């Protein structure tokens, strides 16, 4: 009985994974084709599928990393710092993610705080989790 249930669970899990993998592949294809067109290159179909599967595996690994990072910080919710931390081995990648993160924050912050943004970029990064009113 117990075994049959876990078998069923595993099947459902696999089905869900397959569905997501297909949806993920569609997104990857459009990104890859757009990029290939930009650099005037053709790309053979099996390679697109290959890159897509690679990126999917990377996403699963990323999910595990993010969970561990947030748990280590004593949180149940993943935030932007965790994502940046996952790219810590590559300085360029981390800094590009950092600037993307600042862009996202700038969009949320009302305009009166925007002016001060540049000078406080650094410390805002660390206060993103707990909101500390700094007036």
């Amino acid at each position, binding site marked *: 009985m117990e075994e049959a249930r876990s078998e069923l669970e595993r099947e459902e899990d696999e089905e869900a994974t397959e569905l997501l993998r297909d949806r993920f592949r569609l997104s990857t294809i459009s990104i890859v084709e757009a990029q290939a067109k930009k650099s*005037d290159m053709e790309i053979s179909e099996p*390679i697109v599928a290959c890159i897509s599967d690679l990126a999917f595996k990377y996403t699963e690994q990323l999910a595990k990393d993010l*969970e561990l990072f*947030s748990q280590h910080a004593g949180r149940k919710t993943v935030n932007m710092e965790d*994502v940046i931390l996952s790219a810590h081995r590559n300085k360029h*990648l981390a800094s590009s993610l950092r600037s993307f*993160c600042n862009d996202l924050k700038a969009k949320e912050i009302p305009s009166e705080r925007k002016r001060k943004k540049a000078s406080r970029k650094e410390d805002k990064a660390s206060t993103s989790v707990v909101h500390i009113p700094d007036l």
Partner: protein
Amino acid sequence: MDNANTRFDPDLIHAIFKLVWSRTALEREKNEGADPLECEVGAATSKKNRPTSANANALKLSCELLRVFVIEAVERAATIAEAEGVNKIEATHLERILPQLLLDF
């Protein structure tokens, strides 16, 4: 241009993350279920075993990270193909860039 098409959908990435996280939460539950003392306080531990979640900005940032990953793969392979003087990316080109790509991400 058609920017929406050239990036990942945060909902899709969230769905993948949730799948992985619910898998680990289930595993954790099973491990604790093996412990007879923990079995009795199932209601209390169910909160502890709640799967991880993610905030919206973190998901957007993850989408960007994945987009960069895919674009880097194509660009690096394209560079190799170009150096070889062909204008179609084939398996050998991807093979050449794969080790460094995986080290960089």
